[in-house]
């Protein structure tokens, strides 16, 4: 029987298209394959598999030694000999884990940039954030395996090497969640620093050398300096030993001081300080890695007085219930906030503009009308000469967080912070006992303003909201956000209000195809 092969020609694809979720999974899967050299030549496999083997070998040797001591010296002799175990493993292996992260992690980002594959990813149904999060997650997975596999080998080895394995398991089963947690902490730290460094260069060697140098140099430098400086200063210098940062967390988790940190003055700092320090060194680089733009500081870039008068017909009718000894927060859209501020100045308040007036090319928030109105209103307010003891009226643009920043646009969005306002205590010392939020529509407290009002509330100020359209007034109580929301807000604030890797405050969102610099 003979077969015939037919060329059925090009077939259009009519199956399912799974969109972004499939794209993310594909980039994640490819990240794991890249990190482990799968589907690549033999050379690409050497480094990752060597390190995985080396890390496992350390654990295996530790288990074999402990087993041998137990067999020769009898049950409990390994513990009496104070042989290293799970709590010590991360300290012993930390430098190898970091070198692994330094050499292998950059492969996931640098090669995409150097080969130009990033240009292909970003024209597919995938955002810059999807890409970087998927790459981070891929390397985190590999690092987690690298950190946990040896601990599992060690546990099995210690269990099997003990003359009474079941008894060993019963006594030490709590080590399992501890080493899992400590391993994940170690992996997250190494992954984040490695990926952050890699995001700045398209050459893997530069990233690797920088990272290895960072770990190798900070260790002797901080040890030496910490010995010279005694007390709290020495302890804090010791905290800059980057190799030890996750090991301190390991110590906190196990409740012991491991060999590597036993001489470090930082071990004397409170556990929460060491854990917070770890989170700072992990979350902030993660934020820098993820964020390709920075939130601008609120300031107005006008510096001009416009002689043309304001159109009085646009000034809002203020409610008659305004208390002249209340601090007012005007939260209205753009120029409306300025008009309200001028109207409040006419009523004896002192307007305090808190705007971001930076327009830039292709701005996310169009502030041109606001800036122009501010220029006109400034002359009128100046001519009115507000009284020095007038109650303040803080003017905010309610659109400050609206819009979507896309590549090529100037991101001039911003948030307001408690430090933009005087404290409730200071206001109270000037005879101001209440604060009024002037808005349009139903009462709602924006997330950023809630942190301001909650502090004022705690400091004794009574809070009310007023609907500018209806004049309806209601008392409000700002509840304390959950610890999670507080931590998230703090993290966003810290990470958002810093200079990004591509520019200063209020920067242009970079083009996705600009090679060598963009991870959104």
């Amino acid at each position, binding site marked *: 029987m003979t077969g015939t092969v037919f060329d059925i020609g*090009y077939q259009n694809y009519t199956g399912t298209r799974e969109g972004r979720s*499939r794209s993310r999974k594909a980039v994640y899967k490819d990240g794991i394959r890249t990190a482990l050299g799968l589907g690549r030549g033999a050379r690409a496999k050497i480094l990752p598999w060597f390190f995985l083997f080396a890390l496992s070998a350390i654990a295996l040797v530790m288990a074999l030694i402990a087993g041998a001591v137990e067999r020769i010296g009898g049950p409990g002799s390994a513990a009496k000999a104070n042989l290293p175990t799970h709590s010590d493993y991360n300290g012993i292996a930390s430098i190898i884990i970091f070198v692994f992260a330094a050499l292998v992690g950059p492969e996931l980002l640098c090669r995409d940039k150097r080969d130009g594959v990033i240009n*292909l990813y970003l024209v597919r*149904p995938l955002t810059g954030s999807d890409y970087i999060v998927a790459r981070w997650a891929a390397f985190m997975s590999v690092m987690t395996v690298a950190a946990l596999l040896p601990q599992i080998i060690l546990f099995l080895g210690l269990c099997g090497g003990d003359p009474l394995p079941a008894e060993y398991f019963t006594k030490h089963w709590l080590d399992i969640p501890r080493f899992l947690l400590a391993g994940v902490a170690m992996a997250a730290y190494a992954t984040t620093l490695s990926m952050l460094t890699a995001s700045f260069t398209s050459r893997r060697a530069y990233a690797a050398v920088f990272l290895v140098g960072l770990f190798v140099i900070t260790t002797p430098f901080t040890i030496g300096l910490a010995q010279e400086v005694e007390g709290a200063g020495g302890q804090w210098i010791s905290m800059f030993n980057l190799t030890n940062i996750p090991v301190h967390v390991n110590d906190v988790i196990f409740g012991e001081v491991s060999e590597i940190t036993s001489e470090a003055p930082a071990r004397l700092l409170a556990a929460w300080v060491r854990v917070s320090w770890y989170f700072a060194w992990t979350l902030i680089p993660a934020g820098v890695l993820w964020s390709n733009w920075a939130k601008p500081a609120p300031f107005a870039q006008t510096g001009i007085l416009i002689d043309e008068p304001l159109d009085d017909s646009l000034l809002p009718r203020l409610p008659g219930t305004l208390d002249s000894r209340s601090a007012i927060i005007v939260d209205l859209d753009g120029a409306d906030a300025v008009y309200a501020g001028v109207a409040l100045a006419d009523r004896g308040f002192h307007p305090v503009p808190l705007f971001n007036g930076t327009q830039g090319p292709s701005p996310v928030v169009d502030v041109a009308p606001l800036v122009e109105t501010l220029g006109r209103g400034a002359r009128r307010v100046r001519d009115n000469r507000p009284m020095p003891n007038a109650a303040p009226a803080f003017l905010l643009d309610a659109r400050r967080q609206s819009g979507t920043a896309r590549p090529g646009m100037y991101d001039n969005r911003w948030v307001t912070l408690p430090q933009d306002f005087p404290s409730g205590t200071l206001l109270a010392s000037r005879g101001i006992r209440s604060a009024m939020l002037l808005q349009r529509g139903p009462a709602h407290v924006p997330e950023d303003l809630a942190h301001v009002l909650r502090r004022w509330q705690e400091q004794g100020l009574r809070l009310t909201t007023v609907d500018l359209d209806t004049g309806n007034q209601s008392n409000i109580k700002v509840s304390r956000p959950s610890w999670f929301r507080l931590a998230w807000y703090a993290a966003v604030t810290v990470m958002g209000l810093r200079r990004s890797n591509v520019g200063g405050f209020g920067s242009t969102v970079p083009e996705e195809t600009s090679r060598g610099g963009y991870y959104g």
Partner: protein
Amino acid sequence: MRPAPGTALLTIEHVTKQYKSVRALDDVSFTITDGITGILGENGAGKSTIIKILLGLLQPTSGSARVLGYSASDSVAVRARVGYMPEHDCLPSQVSATEFLTHMAEVSGLPPDMARTRAADTLRHAGLFEERYRAIGGYSTGMKQRVKLCQALVHDPAFVFLDEPTAGLDPAGREEMLQLIRKTHRDFGISVLFSSHLMADVERTCDRIIVLQGGHLVHAGEVAQFTKETETVFIEVDTNREQLVAALQRRGVTVTPDGGGLTVQGSDESVYDHVRDALVEAQAPLRRMAPRRRELTELFERSGT
């Protein structure tokens, strides 16, 4: 599902793109339907900027761009239905073509098993089936260009953007690539927008043409019409050149000296009739007469932009 013939696939309306002090595009508007459309322009004319705006990678300073009925700026979903072949290198050297294409198909949203099938099919159609398991780093320039085209087609897009697809290819490789582009539309049913600074490439491959210069739209329309408008006749005579010029000008023909010969504007039948009559009148022995296309730079000079 393919858009119906004649449907506007891409629409650019009054698009301006300003990069600091440089205006890359200035109030450009056009519509593209199915078929192969070429964007012709010198380096820096704004071809790549147009493609990036249509892909949603750049935001226009003003104006709007729509792709397959969607705003280009809401492009994440649209990108699943378009392909893009960049001008510059974009291929990993270490992996095989089949692995790379499978991966890119998955990144475009195809399930893994379908991605593998599509990768093999696409490589077969591009003539790379036998080489599919070799690392891309070992490919010739022409093969790499074909892999670049394959990655743009692997998810079976409705529309594909090709940015200078013949760049860096020798004449044989260029011809193969142009054939593949024609096949992309004719056999695969995928519409193409293809940028080039080589007029011959666009003329041989495209149905329609968009000409840009310095960010301005110079021409948009059918290639045949453009060719007709831009063709000239080159004449070389042994003697009586000045008499011939005078005779042509008397007949209302635009003629300009061109080296040792003359270039006559237009290429329709009446021009040839005028040339014949002028040659007889001037008693000028004809050595050579041939239709000739204007160089791109001449076209731009003519446009006066």
